[in-house]
């Protein structure tokens, strides 16, 4: 059997496997791909997760197919040790491989960049953790709901500057309205991870980390700290609610009244949150 | 002891080559260390968190810095002269200028130590610039100690082929130290 037959066979096996795998992924896995469709950013991430799965699975299967084909077909006969043919390389094949892998990589990078900067589901692109201050590249238009997320060991506090700076321990958001998170910390580095919303932004002391999302369904979502922040890091989680617009207005009005005595003493909205973190302890 | 190198004959030339390769590689690696401080300087200066990059009165003394820089350059120049004399007139001509270089190097080390331990401001209220300065000068102080040790071992050795091999990297190291200090002096005292 010459080399060409071997390659043809392996390619056929690979193509069949790749089609089957992509069909399975497309119809069985893709509808359930995390993180789901709770918000527009989550939808974008789900979408790119699916695209990557559809591209990468055939690549992986190709490599595995050729390896397994070689391992099964080209065995040393029992009882003897023979040398194989002294093949040292094939210029065309190597150049072709370099070309194909580079193309795939460039395509992946372009897809990722488009998704990052101008995702189909959101005006702002799907990258959370938008950096300090407003980013020139991905900033949504309109008047988003601002929420300052203040992380400390081992709790998140949420602050609504547009509602008199009221501070709450629970996060509530109105459905369908773009939210602009300003994430910061007063002690160690934390990370604000609202899993279902597809938002993750590190909370770094002295930094204002901006992230956008628009919740698209009402319901509960989980908030966890995703950066090791000390003793009770594993216990730094809570729940947030996405409410209807009316429900949110009611909730925030109630919170404003309930917290009025405390709000009075709080500083104005600021990037750096006082009191200053202690150098030690805490 | 012939224990490490099989014979003296083989190794003089090879050892010289090894030392010069290693010297250059070490400088490359070490440059990355100071690059870390250069990055810290530029990064913290650009961020200027809470306007505390350079709070008032927390500056290292420029006069002291200039003196140390001059001493390091003088030391490197003396080693340069010593190395040139050795190439021209043999190992015996190495010692006198190298010893002068060592004296300048020792003085620079003592003054750099003063800069580190008596910076003229409290590091705990120093802000960004003061912090980078303390970190830099701590490392630089250690580098000077290493350089003084290296130069001293060259001087006290019996003039031999080994000496010939290890002088060029030592010279390279001293010029490298001078260049590093010159760059950071500009950053700390001028801009």
């Amino acid at each position, binding site marked *: 059997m010459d080399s060409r037959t071997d390659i043809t066979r392996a390619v056929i096996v690979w193509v069949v496997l790749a089609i089957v795998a992509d069909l399975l992924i497309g119809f069985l896995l893709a509808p359930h791909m*995390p993180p789901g469709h709770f918000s527009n950013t*989550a939808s974008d991430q789900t979408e*790119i*997760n699916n695209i*990557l799965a559809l591209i*990468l699975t055939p690549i992986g299967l190709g*490599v595995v197919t050729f*390896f397994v084909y070689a391992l099964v077909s*080209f*065995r*040393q006969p029992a009882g003897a040790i023979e*040398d*194989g043919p*002294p*093949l040292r390389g094939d210029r065309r094949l190597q150049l072709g491989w370099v070309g194909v*892998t580079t193309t795939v990589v460039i395509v*992946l*990078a372009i897809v*990722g*960049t488009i*998704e*990052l900067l101008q995702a189909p589901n959101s005006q702002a692109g799907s*990258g959370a953790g938008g*950096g300090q201050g407003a980013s020139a590249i991905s900033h949504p238009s309109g008047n988003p709901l601002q929420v300052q997320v203040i992380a400390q060991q081992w709790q998140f506090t949420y602050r609504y500057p547009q509602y008199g700076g009221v501070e709450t321990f629970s996060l509530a958001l109105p459905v369908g309205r773009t939210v602009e998170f300003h994430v910061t910390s007063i002690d*160690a*580095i934390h990370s604000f991870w609202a*899993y279902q919303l597809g938002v*993750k932004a*590190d909370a*770094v*002391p002295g*930094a204002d980390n901006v992230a956008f999302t628009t919740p698209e369904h009402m319901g509960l979502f*989980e908030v966890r700290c*995703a950066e*090791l922040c*000390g*003793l009770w890091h*594993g216990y730094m989680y809570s729940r947030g609610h996405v409410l209807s617009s009316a429900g949110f207005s009611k909730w925030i009005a109630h919170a404003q009244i309930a917290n009025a005595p405390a709000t009075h003493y709080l500083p104005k909205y600021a990037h750096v949150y006082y009191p*200053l973190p*202690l150098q*030690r302890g805490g | 002891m012939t*224990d*490490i190198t*099989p*014979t003296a004959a083989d190794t003089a030339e090879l050892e010289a080559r*090894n030392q010069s*390769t*290693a010297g250059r590689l070490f400088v490359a690696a070490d440059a*990355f260390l*100071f*690059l*870390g401080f250069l990055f810290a300087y530029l*990064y913290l200066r650009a961020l200027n*968190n*809470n306007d505390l990059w350079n709070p008032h009165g927390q500056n290292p003394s420029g006069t002291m810095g200039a003196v140390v820089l001059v001493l390091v350059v003088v030391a490197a120049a003396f080693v340069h002269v010593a190395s040139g004399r050795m190439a021209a007139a043999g190992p015996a001509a190495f010692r006198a200028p190298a010893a002068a270089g060592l004296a300048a190097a020792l003085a620079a080390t003592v003054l750099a130590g003063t800069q580190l331990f008596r910076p003229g401001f409290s*590091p705990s209220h120093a802000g960004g610039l003061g912090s980078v300065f*303390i*970190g830099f000068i701590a490392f630089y102080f250690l580098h000077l100690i290493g350089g003084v*040790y290296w130069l001293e*071992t060259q001087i006290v050795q019996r003039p031999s082929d080994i000496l010939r091999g290890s002088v060029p990297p030592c010279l390279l190291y001293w010029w490298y130290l001078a260049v590093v200090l010159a760059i950071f002096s500009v950053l700390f005292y001028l801009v």
Partner: protein
Amino acid sequence: MSHTETPAPATPAAGRSGILTFNLLWGLVGLVVGYAIGLWIGHRMGSRFDWVAETDYNDVAILIGYALGTLGYLFGLGILNHPIARMFGRSGGDIAKSSTGWSRYARASTDHKVIGNQYLIGIGIFFFIGGLNAMLIRTELLHPNSPTFSPGQYLTIVGLHGAMMIMMVSSIILGPFGHFFVPLMIGSRRMAFPRLEALSFWLLPLAGVVLMSTIAYGGFPTGWTGYPTLGSQADSGMDGYLVAFALVGIGMILNALNMLVTVFNHRAPGMTWARLPIFVWSMLTTSVLMLLGPPMLLAAVVMEMLDRTSGTAFFSSSSGGSPFLWENLFWFFGHPEVYILALPGFGIVLEILPVFARKPLWGQRLAIAGMLGVTLLSFMVWQHHLFVSGINSSLRPFYMFTTELISVPTGFIFLCGIGTLWRAKIRYTVPMLFALAFFFNFLIGGLSGVYLSDVPSDVSLHGSFFVMAHFHYTIMGGLVFAFFAGIYYWLPKMAGVELNERLGKIHFWTTFVFFNSTFLPLFAVGMLGMPRRVATYAPHLQFLNDWVSISAFLLGASMLVFLANFVWSLLVARIPAAANPWMARSLEWQLPTPVPVWDFDGPVRILAGPYEYGNPAAPPVMELGPPIVAAGD
């Protein structure tokens, strides 16, 4: 390359022996004494500083203790004798090259073969300690919310596991195999700087001791990444972490320096760059990373030490510093570090494949280009660790691109693997099985890396168990599998005894199956929202976590199979190994087993490349000149 006209000495100078000479025991005594003195000095000094008086901790004392302890340890080992002698113009105080008996492993030696074996034992011990920590972590995660350990204990375990594996085990291939075989493979009798070689090894166990001493101070809470501000507020265990990382970093730099100079200057005549074995190429590229990455780490570590001791503000944003400074400096080292772990693996598997495929290495130049490409690119990708950290978002497309680009040179290695196996005559020995499994594991690790390089995907996956599964696939599935391939392949030469093949195959299959069974589900766990380094998780993830934990215990048990094999073969059975059991062509196998003290009897001349399988016209790989006798013999 004129050094080969080298007479071998008649016999190595009889090393001083006995317990009263410089050895590990006195090194440890020196460590304790130096530490005590340093602590005393530090307390005297520290009491004058208000920032020490304000806190309960005197980090000044602890750091000075560690520093003087290091000096005492090196002095006790005899490594400082020569530098001190040089100060007085003498050249004495050399470390003995080699002595016989087991005690040579507890003493500084300048024999690259002894050092290789010392690395094997030393790193092996730390690897098993790190592995035990992993078992404890998985024990904690058996249940979503009823902890086995207190939170402090758990963080200590997590930190020690990470630090142990990343710091101590990072040289698991360059240490044992690099030091033992690189000189042999290039036809040299030694490394370029044997004393430096001894120093760089002995720094490693010291770093391990320092790292474990953090337990006495309550551990360090930051994991192996040591992020500030947590690192600045942590207890004194953090000082040990910093010192250990600094020691490892210094050891890496010295190691790399030595390795690079050796390969540049000590190649035998005829060992052209084209004939250089691929394993040596991998050591070369790894050394470039080890030379240029760790200095950044050292800078960062010293900044953190200064923040902790003298109150500087490198990482404190409220005083003019920034935690991002650490993140940048650390990952500028940290990302090359993960390729420090990956490249030696590439080298070993591509070295082993031609031997058991009986074919030349297919596309050798492409493989070399791949390694060089990885080396270059790995310095340009570090900010992908900071995608969600809040740095300037405009940088992200660039780092996404460079990160994805790195899969191109990595792909070369896979093409060379397939090309070598194609139409080959494959023998399924234990080292070959591990090498093949390397490709499978690294493939999954690499493909999952694409998700993490893609910013929108990474937003969800960053800091989750997905990341953890990804780098365990590349490091455990890559590096550690390659290490086992190397140990089954080369131990017959290193220790002179055969390993039991049946136990080896049991070890392989259990490791391979339980490795995948442990880490594959963790991709799903991460995607479903479980962050790293937590002691609690959502109850609906319990089934997956329990599956993973049980698989991990079985994976741990499979390591015991290896340990049993190792101990049995080395201490009990002791079946002498043939000089060239695999019928390999490369240089190290042409030497007798055990390898003579001076490696090559005569001057070496290289006649052919190491992978000329299937080429009947190829000359033997080397010829030896007439044995050289020392003058006095």
